[in-house]
């Protein structure tokens, strides 16, 4: 399985990359980690006419705290996140479970986010934490709320001439915690079910903000808004988390497939939501 022919350009700046993509037209793709794109090209499910390699652009590989959020640049690899002291909560929890160790050495968070694979883990984490995607086009940058960015199955809301340069993940000033629970059949597999949870606690110990989002149980990564609503304003208890789990399970829309029955996947969503929330609360209370 070998890719079809294409043109290739290695950009040395974001501006150059954007220009090269615009010039290349519809069938041009950015190449960052390439860990989703190249396999699709080898299977000839993807046949881009041109690749714009952004790997040689300086300055896109930083993970840094900035104005109350964590900024993850376009060339930050999954492994960088897993090894970083700067990350915490659901982000830190999810990073080691992305694909496998070798894929994590090349694959990027931003690439995964832009790919919008409903079986991808990061978009659930970003939905739960309320992150923003930073997109740069010919006329400058804009910030897109993750909920608006993820449009559909493999579809994001970028314009053709835009490139994701970073993701901004809010870092709460108060007590907070997060967790990502993933059921995978083996290392390297996509999630059978994934649940990201993020909790913030008020001074009195009640939940002041909550984020719950699910992987692989809907046509796109889905926020469990009813579950989130149940949580806010209440004390974090096992009973509450079980209720939130039931609400998340109700919001899931899984399919019967080779990974398992839809009925069972809902059950796993309920269990994992409870576990993720419990882990998040424990972290926030620590």
């Amino acid at each position, binding site marked *: 399985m070998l*890719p079809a022919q294409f043109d290739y350009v290695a950009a040395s700046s974001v501006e150059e990359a954007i220009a090269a993509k615009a010039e290349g037209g519809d069938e041009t793709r950015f190449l960052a980690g*390439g860990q989703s794109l190249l396999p699709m090209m080898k299977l000839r499910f993807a046949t881009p006419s041109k690749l714009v*390699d952004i790997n040689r652009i300086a300055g896109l590989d930083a993970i840094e705290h900035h104005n109350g959020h964590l900024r993850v640049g376009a060339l930050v690899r999954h492994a960088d996140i897993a090894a970083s002291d700067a990350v915490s909560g659901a982000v830190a929890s999810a990073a080691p479970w992305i694909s496998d160790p070798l894929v994590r050495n090349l694959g990027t968070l931003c690439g995964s986010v832009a790919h919008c694979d409903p079986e991808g883990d990061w978009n659930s984490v970003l939905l739960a934490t309320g992150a923003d995607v930073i997109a740069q086009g010919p006329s400058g940058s804009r910030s897109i709320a993750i909920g608006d960015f993820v449009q559909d199955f493999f579809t994001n809301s970028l314009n053709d001439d835009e490139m994701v340069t970073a993701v901004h993940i809010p870092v709460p000033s108060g007590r907070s915690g997060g967790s990502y629970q993933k059921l995978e059949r083996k290392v390297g597999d996509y999630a059978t079910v994934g649940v990201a949870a993020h909790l913030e606690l008020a001074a009195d110990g009640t939940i002041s903000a909550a984020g719950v989002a699910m992987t692989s149980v809907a046509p796109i990564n889905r926020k469990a808004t009813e579950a989130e609503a149940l949580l806010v304003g209440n004390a974090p208890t096992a009973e509450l988390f079980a209720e939130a789990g039931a609400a998340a399970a109700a919001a899931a829309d899984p399919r019967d497939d080779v990974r398992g029955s839809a009925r069972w996947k809902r059950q796993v969503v309920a269990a994992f939501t409870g576990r993720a929330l419990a882990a998040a609360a424990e972290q926030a209370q620590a």
Partner: protein
Amino acid sequence: MEITVNINGTDHTADVEPRLLLVDHIRTGAGLTGTHIGCDTTSCGVCTVLVDGTPVKSCTMLAVQADGRSVTTVEGLKTADGLHPVQQAFSDEHGLQCGFCTPAMMLVGAALIDENPAPSDDEVRWAISGNLCRCTGYMNIVKAIQSAAAAAASSNGDS
């Protein structure tokens, strides 16, 4: 396009198609066949090489992406001083059977013990979990990497 990839300390310059996979450049271009191909989907890891010291799957990287970078393959593990500790340990601990996944496993092991001089059983298993083996059940691969780490640590201590 013309690229120069340093493979095991030697620059290889070639005019390649952009679609040429790094693994094919290594195997066919440089004639180093210790790096293998086992799947089409970035799953098995038998094509693992170190790019600037980091293990990656060379079937999922274009040769043009490696332009100007340093690649280490299994053929580059041995030095003038002899076998790399992982090579010796794989043989001593029976860490290989058919040998098809072995170059990849050894490279991942070498990169791991560079970072972690005494990896636990779990840490080794985690590190090699992007690489499949069909023969060994991993038991002796884990043992070999741990034993290589111990050997490397003791020889570093000696020097």
